[in-house]
């Protein structure tokens, strides 16, 4: 039986979305530098309509990851994304905590 906490577990959500026939992408924090709000291994799962569950940051870069994930679902090739103060997109989707993270986005299946 699923508890309410299980319902928010990204990998369980991904499996249940998959069983419903939805296209799913999984984003994973693979590396962090400095202060990063979510540890290495954290997941955000996204479907083709932009529905998501989980997090890879404190909410700072999720929007950008979702956009990339929808493209990854369409194209199939995984992507490695980097976010942080050193990134040229810092002003748009930087991490306000001053950290840097690398996020891997891949399609499920």
């Amino acid at each position, binding site marked *: 039986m699923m508890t309410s906490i299980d319902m928010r577990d990204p*990998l*369980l959500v*991904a*499996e249940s979305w*998959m069983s419903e026939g939805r296209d799913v992408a*999984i984003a*994973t924090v*693979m*590396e962090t530098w400095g202060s990063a709000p979510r*540890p*290495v*291994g954290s997941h955000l799962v996204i479907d083709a309509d932009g529905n998501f569950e989980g997090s890879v940051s404190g909410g700072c870069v999720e929007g950008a990851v979702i956009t990339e994930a929808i493209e990854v679902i369409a194209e199939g*090739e*995984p992507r*490695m994304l980097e976010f942080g103060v050193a990134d040229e997109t810092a002003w748009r989707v930087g991490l306000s905590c001053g950290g840097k993270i690398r996020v*891997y986005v*891949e*399609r*499920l*299946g």
Partner: protein
Amino acid sequence: MDPHSLKKLNKARSSRQAAILVTDLAEGRDRVVLEGDEVAGALGEEVSSRFLSGKSGLVDCDGRSFFLNVHLPPPRIVIIGAVHISQALYPMAQMTDFDVTIIDPRSAFATAERFGGVNLIADWPQDVLPLKPLDRYTALVAVTHDPKIDDPGVEAALKAGCFYVGALGSRKTHAKRVQRLTEAGFGEVDIARISAPIGLEIGAATPAEIAVAVLADIILAYRKRALDRSGASR
């Protein structure tokens, strides 16, 4: 991610089995390694050390880049005995990220007033434990001083392969316990796994100090625990 990997990983996680999702970043392929599975070479060594540390991360092995996402069952401590030592032990254990359950059939001891904010079960270990089985990622601490309450907990812990089994009592008390366990059919190797007198030797005297000694002993056992090489759950 391969859908089969996701299913296998979720199944391992829900059954409290340690697993690592290994992703080959060059090829974008992944597989699930369960604790006890053989993995050859440098990657195998990396996998073993990460089953112990629980840390996920990128690694380079033999010129290839891998991401290892480590999923260990959250470690638990089951304390048999709602006693003074337990009152000091459970907040410290929670602070160090252990999930704590306290079991004691004596309802005068097991009161919510003495044990706020922790899972407290006023029932016999032999009745409770079958419902919430012990496992290799659980430590069992028996501190009631009463064999008819402590022993069923200790026996269940030895059978389940708990990473730590500690029992309160002097050497004399423990010698009697060893005798009872031997009569119950436990072998020397199993019995030797019991930490008794309980806790690291730090000269602990007060209940709180004994709790520190017990928690330190548990952490030591957890970080140095033997990995399951059998490939089968015990």
